[in-house]
């Protein structure tokens, strides 16, 4: 198992290098000039010096290697310094956002909590709703509950987040003013009132994201349960006189959770992608919104770094899913 993880980690490195190269080459075609919004009164020789300082005129491979060095060497060092208070990274050039004129990672660190709160909570809520729905739908196949569940999950599949989100705003923020439609990032939670406020402003985006997760996972859960319910061991368990509850929730559920858990792990990156749109609707000041504004502002270092972080997430979650699959299912051997 350990060798498998090690081998997969080694394999992930060339993949990630290739992906970062692809992203870089794509962005390299961008027509924008990072100095375009500087005052015109700057003399040309100063402008040239600024270009040199940003390394804009050097060939593409130099800029790529510089970015790679900054991402894989300087930024981890900065992190180490920040954790244990050393100063290894002193004087080193970090990845600087053209838009904010401060290190990209400082801004990302500021934005991560909002995204994690909204996206993470939504994913958790979605999973917690989807699993029971899947179990009941499979156990009572073709019952009215199953029919409704299938229909609702089909709707969750088909209604894109930019429509469900807007609909939620129309119903629950405009017609019935229960929840705010805009996420207030500056809210400080220090007492019960502000905590309630925080819950209320998170409700709508979490609901939108959770609907999608639920739709996908409950269908998968149902299929996996149905697959297992016809196996011989279920009959054996019933023949031994186990109660239906034990058969269903211990024997069948544990077996059908194996593929579902890997799907849950695989879905984490896509929920971050979906969060791009949801954050835009509810004005959540998170990573997705940061990416959109960076794309609009032609902030290439920011776009490059964020896109690469998303790619790292995808590769890591794939790896986690594979490892989990092997850990949970003794029939799978990675030798």
């Amino acid at each position: 198992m350990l060798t498998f993880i090690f081998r997969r980690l080694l394999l992930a490195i060339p993949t990630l290098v290739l992906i970062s190269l692809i992203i870089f080459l794509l962005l390299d075609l961008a027509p924008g000039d990072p100095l375009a919004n500087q005052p015109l009164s700057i003399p040309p020789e100063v402008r040239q010096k600024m270009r040199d300082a940003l390394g804009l005129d050097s060939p593409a491979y130099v800029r790529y290697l510089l970015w790679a060095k900054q991402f894989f060497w300087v930024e981890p060092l900065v992190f180490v310094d920040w954790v244990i208070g050393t100063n290894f990274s002193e004087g080193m050039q970090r990845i600087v956002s053209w838009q904010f004129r401060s290190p990209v990672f400082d801004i990302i660190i500021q934005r991560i909590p909002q995204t994690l709160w909204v996206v993470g909570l939504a994913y958790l809520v979605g999973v917690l709703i989807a699993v029971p729905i899947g179990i009941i739908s499979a156990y009572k196949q073709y019952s009215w509950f199953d029919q409704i569940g299938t229909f609702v999950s089909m709707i969750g599949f088909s209604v894109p987040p930019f429509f469900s989100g807007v609909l939620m705003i129309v119903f629950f923020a405009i017609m019935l003013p229960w929840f705010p439609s805009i996420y207030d990032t500056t809210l400080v939670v220090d007492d019960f009132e502000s905590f309630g406020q925080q819950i209320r402003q998170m409700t709508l985006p979490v609901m939108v994201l959770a609907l999608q997760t639920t739709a996908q996972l409950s269908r998968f859960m149902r299929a996996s349960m149905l697959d297992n319910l016809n196996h011989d061991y279920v009959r054996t368990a019933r023949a031994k006189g186990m109660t239906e509850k034990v058969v269903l929730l211990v024997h069948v559920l544990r077996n059908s959770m194996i593929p579902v858990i890997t799907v849950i792990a695989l879905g984490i990156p896509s929920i971050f992608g979906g969060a791009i749109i949801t954050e835009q609707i509810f004005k959540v000041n998170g990573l997705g919104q940061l990416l959109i504004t960076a794309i609009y502002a032609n902030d290439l270092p920011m776009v490059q770094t964020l896109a690469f972080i998303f790619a790292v997430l995808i590769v890591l979650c794939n790896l986690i899913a594979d490892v989990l699959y092997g850990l949970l299912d003794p029939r799978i051997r990675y030798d």
Partner: protein
Amino acid sequence: MTDTPLEPVAKDTSARSQWWDVWDQFKTHKGALFGAAVFLFIVLSVTLGPLLWPIEPTFIDIRARNSGPSLAHPFGTDQLGRDILARMMAGGQVSIAVGLTAMAISVLLGTLIGVVSGFFRRLDGALMGLTDLFLALPLLPLLLVMVMLFRESLSRSFGPETGTFILIVSAIGITSWMQTARIVRGEVLALKEREFVLAARSIGTPSRRMILRHILPNVLSPIMVSATLGIATAIITESALSFLGLGFPPDFPTWGRLLFDAVDYLQQYPERVFWPGLAISLTVLSVNYIGDGLRDALDPRIRGR
């Protein structure tokens, strides 16, 4: 869309081909039948509707702006007095055209890569590596970046409408072929072990004819299913891009663009977001049901049960 494979067989009644069986099975799936009807209705109203509804989608009647539903404008008008019904029909044409074209590109690419990597063992490793690489790419951010980068230059060379269309269709096509390629490859690998392939090979069939004659017809069903579902994803992706403001220009509406424009007036005219959103959702829902029904109908293990 679903009826296309059925049309040629409808003419020859002498021999009962497998497509009749498929149709018989498809008919039993109520959701799929209903979905096909809804999709047909949407396509017809979007293509034939403008013939019956004379108002131009770009006609500006500034005195009738922001009017509610009335006989002259059943869906009301927008902030410039353009008729929303006419814009919905024009937007639907573009949305569905984008969905169909992007699906065609992605299915073509996916089938090509899937068949080649399943059939030629030497290319398998490289092509599947490429597929895995594409699956690991953060697609939505890259789509946004691609649209931002190439919109200007393509608009300049092909005009704003055609340029954006080409860009969005190819961007969606290039980023969504991987699932099809994987499914097709799996099927081809299984087919290669079958006796009829061995027989065809033993009489000296060249690879090209082998693929076209023996392999492709047998992998048609998974391709058709993923093509159907591909329409839905393409429509959603295009709407998402338009919704983020990186899609079609405002005077060339799609459903996603109409939704995006309506969000600005959410406080005053909340009903305006409803129609484009409903159109997108209904189209995607019906296409998904069609795909579900097709999957069941094309599976010989389920058929005839």
